[in-house]
């Protein structure tokens, strides 16, 4: 199992780790059985994600994908954040071992989950915008 330096860096020094007391949206995906839980907090102003934090239970790749995902969406519009694919997450980390690609899917889902929560709180039906937020396929035990 080979992690890239980028993965190890994001694991060792995760960016934006923690909680946001006054979050506008909180998403959580994954489950303990599968070994990964990601919780994402976002702060939104004028359709822009102004702040983001995460908490993750999981392997090195789970932590690193959470960390890089927060970096990739902070300062972006919600629309852009929703466009973030797991592929982009993998690329930003210079790759992931095949058995860990599911973590990048989880990161993508965590963002969607937080946005869903944000819209719900705003009284907007998230489904037409975000779609159904699932877990990654690998986790469907």
């Amino acid at each position: 199992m080979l992690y890239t330096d980028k993965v190890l860096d994001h694991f060792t020094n995760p960016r934006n780790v923690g909680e946001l007391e006054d979050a506008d949206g909180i998403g959580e995906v994954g489950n303990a059985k599968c070994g990964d839980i990601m919780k994402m907090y976002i702060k939104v102003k004028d359709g822009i994600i102004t702040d983001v934090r995460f908490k993750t239970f999981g392997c090195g790749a789970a932590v690193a994908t959470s960390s890089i995902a927060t970096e990739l969406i902070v300062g972006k519009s919600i629309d852009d954040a929703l466009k973030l694919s797991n592929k982009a997450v993998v690329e930003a980390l210079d790759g992931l071992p095949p058995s860990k690609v599911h973590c990048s899917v989880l990161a993508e889902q965590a963002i969607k989950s937080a946005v869903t929560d944000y819209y719900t709180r705003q009284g907007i039906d998230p489904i037409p915008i975000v779609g159904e937020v699932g877990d990654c396929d690998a986790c469907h035990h």
Partner: protein
Amino acid sequence: MEKRFIYADNAATTKVSDAVLNAMLPYFNEQYGNASSIYGMGRNAKRDLEVSREKVAKALSCDPKEIYFTSCGSEADNWAIKGVCERLAPRGKKHIITSVFEHHAVLHTCEALERQGFEVTYISIDENGIINLDELKNAIREDTAIVSIMYANNEIGTIQPIKEIAEICQEHDVIFHTDAVQAIGSVEINVKELGVDLLALSGHKIHAPKGVGALYIRKGLVLPNFIHGGAQERNKRGGTENIPAIVGLGVAMEEVTTGIPQRVENVTKLRNKLIDGILEIPHTRLNGDREKRLCGNCNISIEGIEGESILLMLDMYGICASSGSACTSGSLDPSHVMLSLGLSHEIAHGSVRFSISDETTEQDIDYILEVMPKIVNRLREMSPLWEKIIEAEG
């Protein structure tokens, strides 16, 4: 705190000892002859091969003719189980008994045989990681070809009642194989007193190099060949003999089976300090029986965090450890051993194994004990699962 390098993953593999390496070196480019060759260099290789066989035999208290060298522990396990099954299937014996927490070298072999029409009964273990003897007794049938139960588990280090199992097998006239890869050097083994028919071992777990193992085959038991080829190993295992590694294995077997009681006492003392120290961290539990346990094994589950993260953090501090079997990392599921103990998935995911050796020092243990709470705290702080556990406690 100064960063140190501490190798605490001796159950995964070990450092080749100086004595072993020195014994091996001449065979690479000085005494490199083929042991089947007639000239002096070949005859010397053959002689040294047989000396090594004698050493391995002595370490197990058997006849050198009962020792066959293989390329690893896995090959020895495959040969033993497939060999017995191939031999006994024509007599209608198509049932195998093994345990739920064997190494994959045994489990996947049994599964392969299942696909070929054999039936396999998997004996459970109790919550301390010890095989259920009554279940074993009840599982034996008229058509049972072989019982394969490991001597000591690689993840949780629990030592099994091999002598009792051998007695049960003898009573029922069933062949008994034990995977002793983890037990060698930590337990005194006399195959004759034990009454096992087959026993597998591996070099790289006992400070010999990777790529060599051995299978003890009790005299009188004839197995079909597994690797067909030349007349090596008295016609039983083809392939040019790996003399450097075999010589290394002989030296290692001599080393690790000498002075076992004293070494076990010393290592156990350190290991207990390690266990007790880590268990001071709240929400942790020791996996596997505390007494019937390999002296070097410390396997602990830590709630709210995940094993691989712990390992990566330990690595940052220069500590090599493992979570579940090293062989199965890269898989998504928590190890089958952890689950077979009855642990929930989340607790199974959060296990960490330290396997120390007699080279481990008290300072090493102190260092691990200093580092572990920091790592646990840091990971728990960022764990949404830990959050829930704490909330649930109120």
